[in-house]
């Protein structure tokens, strides 16, 4: 019997009361699910805290839903719009492409370009066989005729490949020539490798052409077990400029194309100039046919564009500077940016819904076979009324969405200093290949995943989720500790998401006197960063309630907020690194990697920035001399003694996981006060590699003073201010002892002052001799 499983996602994650939201659900082992709208209050099930808390909410959609299994097309490819069948070659033709395979010997067939239906054995294609050899094939429905190159393709090397078919003589040819240079591939000139193959054969027949077969790049038509049309034989690697002729070209003509020119011949049917249509602010999913028929190709699961091409000379490092050298489009058979499931239910949300984090809780089965899924979304206010906003760092949730670091990344355990603690959902996700990867993972060909999406089930954006490599509640589950704290504190608040901040800029924040961040607001687009800076500079009061924030660049394309892009450079923490020349985001043209390198260290924005990170035991903060200063002594009012945060749901302390510190050299505002600092961290905590020029022994917790968290405060122009907590684990110290603890007291003092009307406490103390209490 199939175990009962329910998975879902929504079409959007930020909605207003009264709006309609679509739920896309896939079910296994059941055809019904009990749906109940819930508001999520607290997630972490650690017995030292309040445990999991949800509130059931009345909604017309509550009740039994019909659910069904849904099909997911995994893999990126391009499909050509050819309604008149111009690519259905009945007679002679030529196919050509520049290719850079990243996993030629994958053990599976790959189609590079072609109009091929593998189930019906109809059409033609040029691709790679199971052993990594280039192949040209045709079929008429019964047998497949193949012509295979006699040398295998080298991984990560550029080739010009072409296949011709002369219908009169039935002669087929296959050409494979290496076009590597000093920069564009894995191997240099000194490697003794045979790249070239030229083969020919006489085929017995001509290709068949089904009207329903699409011309596809990086895959070919197939059918799944239910006979639904899908794309398989997916290709791993880059494809640069490619095209077709309706005649069999001669070797000299192919040599001309290989040199970068395309003959202006009447027989040219399509020429996809993969570098056409670039703008400085991004590249879309449409690949343009610059030939006379305009047979444009549309990307599916977002092929990676703006990659270095076959003719890249290495002098420029960005597609904006020499687009013609960056025509590479990268494909991965395990890419996924949209499950494209049918909508299971469109739900009109109640008009009076309180702003907050919600989920449609779906349940099916009984007892031990009960399957429960929380499909999470966020409700922002219809019209802002509260003085406080909590900003869910949804872009960071996306960056980590469905990460599998504990299984796949050889350095993860060394980084956290502890063995992974895997839950059943982690193991299940690792076994499945239909929910995609995170920007922390690598595709199976070893290349980093640079797109992540919420149009798929995101199993670590769930209230009870624990991150296995750290064995703590993380992301949404950690941020709910701040929501639960706000709820019990009695503060009126509303919630926003990164998506709203990116779309609306500082206008998203400006209605609020006080904005509170999540525990790890790590990924920021330029627009989000600008909006936050403008909000604070215009008098906004900002609580940076975490650590490792505002650290990494990210891109979101207008109109498609469900996909985020992330490129990684060699100057920061990174689970993988983009190849040279591929550090710039195709989404918006911004350079990927840490913001610090771009002149926007976190310290410039909120006073502190990443000093170190690690796993294992967390530590408390101790009050620092500044905290007694009359301008800021109100922050620690009511705190008993010197220690703040000596317990927590994340390894028993408020300072842990990732720590931020004050650094004038990185832009901490000059008048910033250090309220408290942590110390005594274990050697699992290592200094942020962006802060050091060399690697050397002793960059660890018990050796290097920089391994600590600073809790800081500064006033900003126009009555604004920033309070920074300094650590990712801080939020998880709030629920301890039923929210009665030093960390909770400090945050309450700050939020109360920030949300209040009028000037901030301590403003009147201007003469230095009277500053000390």
């Amino acid at each position, binding site marked *: 019997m199939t175990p009962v499983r329910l998975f879902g996602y929504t079409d959007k994650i930020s909605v207003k009361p009264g709006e309609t939201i679509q739920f896309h659900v896939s079910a296994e082992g059941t055809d019904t699910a009990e749906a109940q709208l819930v508001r999520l209050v607290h997630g972490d*099930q*650690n*017995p030292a805290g309040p445990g999991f808390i949800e509130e059931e909410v009345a909604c017309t959609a509550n009740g039994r839903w019909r659910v069904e299994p849904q099909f997911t097309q995994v893999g990126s490819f391009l499909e050509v719009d050819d309604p008149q069948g111009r690519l259905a070659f009945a007679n002679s033709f030529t196919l050509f492409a520049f290719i850079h395979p*990243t*996993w030629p*010997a*994958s053990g599976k067939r790959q189609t590079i370009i072609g109009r091929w239906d593998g189930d019906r054995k109809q059409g033609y294609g040029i691709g790679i066989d199971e052993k990594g050899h280039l192949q040209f094939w045709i079929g008429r429905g019964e047998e497949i005729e193949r012509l295979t190159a006699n040398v295998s393709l080298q*991984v*990560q090397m550029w080739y010009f490949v072409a296949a011709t078919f002369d219908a009169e003589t039935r002669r087929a040819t296959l050409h494979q020539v290496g076009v590597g240079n000093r920069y564009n591939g894995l191997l240099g000139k000194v490697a003794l490798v045979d790249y070239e193959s030229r083969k020919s054969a006489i085929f017995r027949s001509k290709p068949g052409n089904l009207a329903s077969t699409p011309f596809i790049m990086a895959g070919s038509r197939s059918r799944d077990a239910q006979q639904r049309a899908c794309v398989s034989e997916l290709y*791993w690697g880059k494809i640069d400029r490619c095209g077709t002729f309706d005649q069999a070209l001669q070797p000299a003509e192919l040599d001309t194309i290989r040199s970068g020119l395309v003959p202006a011949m009447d027989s040219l049917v399509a020429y996809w100039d993969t570098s056409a249509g670039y703008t400085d602010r991004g590249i879309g999913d449409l690949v343009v046919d610059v030939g006379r028929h305009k047979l444009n190709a549309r990307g599916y699961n977002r092929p990676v564009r703006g990659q270095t091409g076959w003719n890249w000379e290495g002098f420029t490092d960005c597609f904006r500077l020499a687009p013609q050298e960056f025509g590479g489009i990268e494909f991965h058979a395990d890419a996924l940016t949209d499950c494209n499931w049918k909508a299971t239910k469109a739900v009109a949300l109640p008009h009076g819904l309180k702003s907050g984090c919600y989920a449609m809780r779906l349940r099916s089965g009984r007892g031990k076979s009960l399957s429960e899924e929380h499909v999470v979304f966020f409700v922002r206010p219809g019209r802002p009324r509260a003085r406080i906003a909590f900003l869910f760092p949804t872009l960071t949730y996306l960056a980590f969405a469905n990460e599998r670091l*504990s*299984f*796949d990344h*050889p350095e993860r*355990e*060394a980084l956290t*200093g*502890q*063995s*992974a*603690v*895997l*839950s*059943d959902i982690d*193991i299940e996700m*690792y*076994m499945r*290949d239909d929910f995609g990867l995170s920007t922390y993972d*690598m595709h*199976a*060909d*070893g*290349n*980093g995943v640079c797109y992540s999406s919420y149009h798929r089930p995101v199993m670590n954006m769930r209230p009870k989720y*624990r991150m*296995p490599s750290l*064995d703590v509640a993380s992301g949404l589950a950690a941020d709910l500790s701040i929501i639960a704290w706000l709820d019990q504190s009695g503060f009126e608040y509303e919630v926003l998401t990164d998506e709203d901040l990116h779309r609306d800029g500082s206008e998203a924040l400006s209605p609020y006197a006080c904005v509170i961040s999540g525990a790890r607001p790590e990924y920021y687009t330029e627009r989000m960063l600008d909006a936050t800076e403008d909000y604070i500079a215009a008098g906004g009061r900002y609580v940076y309630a975490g650590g490792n924030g505002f650290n990494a660049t990210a891109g979101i394309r207008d109109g498609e907020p469900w996909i985020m892009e992330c490129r990684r450079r060699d100057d920061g923490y990174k689970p*993988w690194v983009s190849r040279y020349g591929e550090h710039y985001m195709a989404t918006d043209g911004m350079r990927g990697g840490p913001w610090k390198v771009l002149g926007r260290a976190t310290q410039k924005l909120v006073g502190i920035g990443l000093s170190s990170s690690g*796993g*294992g*035991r967390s530590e408390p903060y101790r009050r620092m001399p500044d905290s007694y200063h009359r301008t800021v002594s109100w922050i620690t009012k009511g705190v008993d003694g010197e220690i703040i945060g000596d317990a927590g749901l994340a*390894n028993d302390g408020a300072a842990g996981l990732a720590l931020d510190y004050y650094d004038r050299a990185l832009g901490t505002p000059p008048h910033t006060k250090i309220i408290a600092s942590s110390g005594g961290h*274990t*050697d*699992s905590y290592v200094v942020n590699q962006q802060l050091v020029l060399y690697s050397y022994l002793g960059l660890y*917790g*018990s050796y290097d003073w920089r391994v600590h968290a600073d809790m800081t405060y500064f006033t900003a122009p126009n009555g604004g201010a920033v309070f920074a907590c300094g650590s990712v684990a801080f939020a998880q110290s709030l629920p301890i002892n039923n929210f009665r603890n030093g960390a909770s007291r400090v945050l309450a003092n700050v939020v109360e002052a920030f949300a209040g009307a009028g000037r901030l406490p301590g403003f009147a103390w201007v003469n230095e001799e009277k500053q000390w209490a």
Partner: protein
Amino acid sequence: MLPLEYGRSEDRDIIVRDRFDGFRREFLRTLVNPEVIEEHRQSALGQHSERLERLLIYFRQRPLEQRYAVRAIEPFRRYQVVRLSGRRGVPPRLVDDAIYTSANDARHGLFLRCIRDLLET
């Protein structure tokens, strides 16, 4: 990066790595004593002596398919030790029937397995 599963039959680096590993293991075996095991039992995630830290650093650097993890059968209540597959899509396998009542106890069980592997091979 090369594909996660590429043929390593021609990769000579493995010979160098294995030789280093042999020397390293020989030395690490001399560090194992009852005190170091007791230290880990008392504080699996704390600050460690150099002797214990050296052993742990080694265990964390083993090839993925030779590494263990903890499986939470029921968070905060029941745990087991599993061995990673090192192959994408292949789940970890159970190494024995021992059930631990805390993650820390399971971490120590995992540590003892690593010690046993070190001493026996």
